[in-house]
């Protein structure tokens, strides 16, 4: 097989569903993903280790209890394996895509290969370039973080980081762990830790459950989500994990690693109250404020972006088509909505690719079903974003010396100085003046905090454009040149 019909970047729920659907309707697919197993972050699995090196390896069975809806995952995996065996699909796992560009009327993705299990070849052991008439960007999302006092101490992680250690490596991040931030994702993280033997001292959810009261119609359209929530509530009770709502972690304490966290109650306006704070001993804490879509490759391809109500940049699309011909998207890149929505969107996008590539009219009844399902799940996602918004007073959990940008070690005081004394007007100008967002992670971690801090200080939302990362991952020159 040379040159597939479609190259799909990202093998999470959206990319998997898209690839499998495309193959079923006669297209050939190249699927590229940075992970060693398909599934993305949601269905993250341990790196498979084969042969004699595999003795004692972490197995998929071992982490099965941490997963939701595994039958769907397994069905997608076996259909993908069949497609690979039939020469209809190729998978490039362990490949990090660092850019995309136009090629021969289509699209080419460039990726570097990661070091394999037990492998001795250097990181970036090979460069991959695959091209196809159609490109699907299904690159998912990562935890949204906000700075707070002491958040740079080792042992302070994102909620997703705790989950990745569990699902990918069967490791609990600590023996006494706090989980904090906002959103339903905190619950499976806490339950997974408890099932893995850690003591979860508390789940500190910033928003009161009453915020869901305004969104009952969206909940009613998504009964499965309600059942899922009830399942986790029961699991929390079973493991005696305290769920404390209306609270946030305002400080991590310790010298060279986190030793405790301070938890504050939030007042009605979302500000941490000075009274009644408690300090809890922990050796790890995971904080998550929802998720940030990974839109880099779509931005590089020239796709228009838009913003969700909570100010996050997402790829503008209709039925999976972006504003650029030949470039498609599905899943969290269109707005964070969870795995069920990503699956539906992945399938929907495959039908759009199919229609554009072949003129083939897909199953109309199936399309109607998918469109209804996507609409219902998006209404739930919109309700969730509002019910689990970042509390207005989050800045009170920072101090002047709190690092805003972890990479470049830029304190909040430097951002305040840029806004107050150097006439910066938006997050982009703050970045240029302070270097916040110019380090190794290219602002992925601090962008949300910088934008929210600027918004807090200027009294209106920050409107600077989506960050362009033409090189989506740091690449070594020697890897590009193919020299050792």
């Amino acid at each position, binding site marked *: 097989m040379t040159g597939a019909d479609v190259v799909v970047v990202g093998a999470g729920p959206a990319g998997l569903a898209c690839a499998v659907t495309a193959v079923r309707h006669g297209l050939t697919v190249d699927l590229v993903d*940075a992970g*060693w197993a398909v599934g993305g*972050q949601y269905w993250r699995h*341990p*790196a*498979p*280790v084969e042969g004699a*090196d*595999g*003795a*004692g*390896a*972490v197995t998929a069975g071992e982490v099965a209890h941490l997963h939701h809806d595994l039958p769907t995952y397994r069905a997608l995996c076996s259909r993908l394996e069949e497609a690979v065996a039939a020469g209809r699909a190729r998978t490039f796992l362990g490949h*990090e895509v660092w850019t995309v560009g136009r090629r021969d009327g289509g699209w080419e993705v460039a990726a570097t290969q*990661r*070091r*394999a*299990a*037990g*492998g*001795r070849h*250097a*990181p970036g052991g090979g460069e991959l370039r695959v091209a196809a008439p159609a490109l699907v960007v299904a690159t998912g999302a*990562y*935890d949204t*973080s906000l700075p707070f006092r002491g958040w*740079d*101490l*080792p*042992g*302070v*992680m*994102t909620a*997703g*980081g*705790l*989950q*990745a*250690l569990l699902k*990918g*490596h*069967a*490791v609990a*991040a600590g023996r006494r762990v706090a989980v904090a931030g906002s959103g339903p994702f905190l619950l499976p993280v806490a339950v997974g830790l408890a099932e893995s033997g850690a003591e979860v001292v508390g789940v500190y959810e910033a928003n009161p459950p009453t915020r869901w009261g305004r969104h009952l119609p969206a909940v009613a359209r998504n009964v499965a989500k309600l059942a899922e929530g009830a399942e986790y509530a029961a699991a929390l009770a079973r493991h005696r994990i305290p769920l404390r709502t209306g609270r946030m972690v305002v400080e991590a304490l310790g010298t*060279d*690693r986190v030793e405790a966290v301070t938890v504050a109650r939030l007042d009605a306006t979302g500000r941490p109250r000075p009274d009644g704070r408690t300090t809890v001993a922990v*050796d790890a804490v995971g904080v998550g404020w929802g998720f940030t879509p990974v839109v880099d490759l779509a931005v590089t391809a020239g796709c228009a972006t838009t913003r969700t109500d909570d100010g996050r940049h997402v790829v503008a699309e209709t039925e999976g088509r972006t504003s650029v011909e030949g470039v498609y998207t599905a899943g969290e890149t269109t707005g964070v909505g969870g795995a069920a929505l990503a699956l539906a969107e992945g399938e929907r996008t495959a039908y759009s690719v199919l229609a554009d590539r072949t003129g083939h009219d897909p199953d109309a009844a199936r399309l109607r079903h998918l469109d209804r399902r996507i609409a219902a799940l998006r209404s739930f996602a919109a309700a969730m974003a509002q019910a689990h918004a970042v509390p207005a007073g989050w800045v009170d959990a920072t101090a002047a010396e709190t690092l805003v940008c*972890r*990479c470049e*070690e830029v304190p909040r005081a430097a951002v305040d100085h840029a806004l107050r004394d150097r006439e910066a007007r938006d997050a982009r100008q703050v970045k240029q003046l302070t270097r916040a967002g110019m*380090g*190794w*992670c290219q602002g*992925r*971690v601090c962008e949300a905090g910088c934008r929210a801090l600027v918004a807090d200080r200027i009294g209106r939302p920050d409107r600077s454009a989506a960050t362009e990362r033409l090189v989506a991952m*740091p690449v070594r020159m020697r890897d590009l040149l193919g020299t050792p």
Partner: protein
Amino acid sequence: MTALTTFRFDDRDVPYRPGQSVGAALTACDIRSWRTTPREGRPRGLFCGIGICYDCLVTVDGMPNQRACLVLAADGMRVTTQEGVGER
């Protein structure tokens, strides 16, 4: 279970299970940091755990700036604490 496989971290042997990342194996050994920051010399370790944040950079087999959350542990691998930008 008994871990038969180890890698070297600074002056100690760290057991790991095949398929685990360097960062996961260090965490399982209660080691939380393996880098100091260029400006303040502060300790850092895992943060995002998925290759996004680059906080867990470490020197692996003499090569600096490797993400400990992604590099899979291998028998006999030499992992060393990275000071600052990791230039030798």
